């Protein structure tokens, strides 16, 4: 098995320490950092994402895989910056105002990054204005809003209204997701996209960025 395949395999098992060792070895062997990233780390994470979509793996497996991916990327970062890797699009993501939960949001962020998107993480308890201002300042293609609570999900409609008021509604797509969110809710508030899981959200964001 090649070292790149080993990275992918161990990432899928969530083996943090092994992934770090293998990435370091691959760097020492002079393997192209973008190959380590794309064919090792991101490829492994994409497999996990697909399995998650199909209920073949569960939240814990995704969390440990994502941690291993992030650790590998940290090692590659100084080398990748030099190569100026082009992202597939820019997304600002956050948990809406009044809501402090971020496991779901972080999963979506990691899945999006594994698809080659640049993700600006606004954290939790994010106001509609902060979403929209970031989208303007950083020229984001997509605003992605997360909520865990039924009491906070309505903030998402404020994000849509705020984007309309700022005159950027035709320039940015708004994605919504989280425990209480449904497709019907997404349509009702005038958002553009709802997906039921993190991996599908990443796929959808890539598509939305591509058409902008």
């Amino acid at each position, binding site marked *: 098995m090649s070292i790149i395949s080993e990275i992918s395999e161990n990432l899928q098992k969530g083996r943090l320490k092994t992934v770090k060792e293998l990435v370091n070895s691959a760097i020492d062997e002079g393997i192209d950092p973008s190959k380590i990233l794309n064919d090792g780390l991101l490829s492994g994470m994409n497999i996990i994402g697909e399995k998650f979509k199909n209920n073949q793996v*569960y*939240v814990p*497996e995704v969390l440990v895989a994502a941690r*291993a991916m992030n650790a590998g990327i940290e090692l590659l970062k100084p080398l990748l910056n030099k190569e100026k890797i082009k992202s597939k699009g820019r997304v600002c993501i956050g948990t809406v105002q009044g809501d*402090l*939960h971020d496991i779901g949001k972080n999963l979506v962020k990691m899945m999006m990054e594994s698809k080659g998107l640049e993700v600006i993480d606004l954290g939790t*308890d994010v106001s509609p204005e902060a979403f929209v201002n970031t989208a303007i300042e950083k020229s984001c293609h997509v605003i992605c809003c997360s909520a865990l609570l039924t009491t906070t999900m309505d903030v998402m409609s404020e994000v849509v209204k705020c984007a309309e008021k700022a005159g950027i509604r035709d320039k940015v797509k708004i994605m919504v997701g989280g425990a209480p969110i449904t497709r019907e809710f997404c349509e009702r508030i005038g958002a553009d996209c709802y997906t039921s899981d993190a991996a599908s959200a990443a796929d959808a964001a890539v598509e939305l960025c591509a058409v902008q």
Partner: protein
Amino acid sequence: MNNRERILNILHYKDVDRFPAVHFGYWEELLQEWAEQGKIPKDLAVGNYDGSQKERELDYLIGWDCNWYKTVGFNYNLDPPFERKLLEVLPDGCRRILNEDGIIERVKPGTVSIPSEDDYLLKDREAFETLFKPKMQYSPNRINFDFFRNFSKTRPNDVTVGIHAGSVIGNVRNMTSVIGMSYLMYDEDEELFGDIIDTYADMQYKCLEAVLNTCEEFDFAHYWEDICFKNGPLISPKNFEKYCAKHYQKRNDLLHRHGIDIISLDCDGVTEQLLPVWFETGVNVMFPIEVGVWGDQFEPARKKYGKGMLGVGGMDKTALRKDKAAVDKEIERMKRLASLGGFIPCPDHRLMPGTKFELVQYYAEEIKKIKL
């Protein structure tokens, strides 16, 4: 026929004069909202918990018959708990607090939200052995023996009362956080994760055994887990079986030996993939079957497991925030589920802020009209 008889008869497929109007409590913020609207007296809005006297008064005012979640039990928490402590106030006003389970949570004053988990203490073997294991030991102090000795004389006879059988994994998740549980189980120390589950479960078994040896006056048993979410379980079914099945089996066998044949389990989210372990080890009541927020369902489980699978819950509580038409639609659905037998309609979780008082009254009255 009283409500205890009604509930037990339905769950044993026997006749009833009518269906009971059963609920699962409220968000405290809703009771305050209702008090401010003048719908309920202000004193009923505070200190109102499952099965309390205040709740009974509120039941009467609204028209409910009872709360399903009326249980008594032993202390299955960490004992003593960690001392709740403010660690840090962040620039955005959020507070980082060490909670009773050893989790560092982030809360924002003035925000109605479940706290989020920032960090946790139970990360390795040393933390387990020194900080947690001593707090997971059996002690008679975990049980109010006097209460149970007198329970047959003090318990209400017109409503069901369950023995709380504790938790196999939900509380461990509360001590490790979802993230910590995942890291331990899959990468860092799966043997330690097994030891945590086993230690914690053994203590609860001893407590349950001691309670049941003192008193057998229970109508049902009840677990709390909350280990699922919108897309299914927060643990793979394979690992769930590996770590947890033996403990459900042991505890449920004990309950059966003491004549308890209704074993309910509270798990939010979509529970389908964990049902095999629960059902095969003796848990036979799905509760609260979160239809509205998470899309859980009772009918597929009944089809798959047959009449041995019972249910309490399944009514989309969000309809009670909407209008009469939405409530009527749910009542019709409840009638259909009730006709299957072995099913008691109940809002699918605690009623939340924005719930309309009059709609709840209406729903409770209509449910009582269901006859088989």
